[in-house]
């Protein structure tokens, strides 16, 4: 089999958040990592007297999490997810999140989900490192939709 082509890193990924699903804020200048997980299907299994392996059945999709790590700043509030999402976290409002692994240009794929914030992290402090202050959030929502960006 021929080796895969078109493989790229996530160095140009684009991450956006919205509080209404219409007006998006590009937080790519502050986001450091994004890790989706979950959305497994409900599953069950049972055994019969014949055969050695179980019979497996599946049900609905479970919820999943998207954990986003961002830098912490108190001056660039437009890019600060902590400030952007603080009120939504407190109110339990819906938060929309979408990300494009290759950058969000025309023809790139984009994943989008909506859910509730289950975590909005406080910046930890450590005098023994020179690491930038970081914060982040976790959104728990439905299985993301995948689309191709047309404009």
């Amino acid at each position, binding site marked *: 089999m021929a080796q895969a082509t078109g493989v790229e890193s996530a160095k140009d990924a684009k991450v956006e958040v919205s509080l209404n699903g219409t007006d998006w804020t590009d937080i790519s200048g502050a986001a450091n990592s994004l890790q989706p997980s979950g959305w497994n299907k409900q599953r069950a299994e049972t055994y019969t007297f014949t055969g050695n392996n179980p019979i497996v059945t599946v049900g609905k999709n479970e919820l999943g999490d998207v954990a986003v790590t961002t830098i912490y700043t108190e001056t660039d509030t437009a890019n600060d997810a902590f400030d952007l999402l603080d009120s939504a976290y407190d109110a339990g409002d819906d938060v929309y999140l979408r990300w494009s692994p290759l950058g969000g240009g*025309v*023809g790139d794929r*984009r994943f989008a989900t909506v859910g509730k914030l289950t975590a909005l992290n406080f910046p930890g402090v450590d005098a023994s490192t020179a690491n930038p202050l970081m914060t982040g959030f976790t959104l728990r929502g439905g299985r993301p*939709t*995948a*689309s*191709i*960006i*047309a*404009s």
Partner: protein
Amino acid sequence: MKVEVLRRVSRPDKDYLPGETLIVDQQTAAILIGKGAVTEVAEPKQPNKPDTKGAE
């Protein structure tokens, strides 16, 4: 250019689902067709005028 959506396509106004049609410029259409996201919709030909010769 009019295209038919094959795989969900995202535009600022909405997401277009398979089977829907939308208008995009030629450059965008070429990219989307290359990605297998849309296919070009052939413009319908002008219907022929009814042949009235010999009707009488």
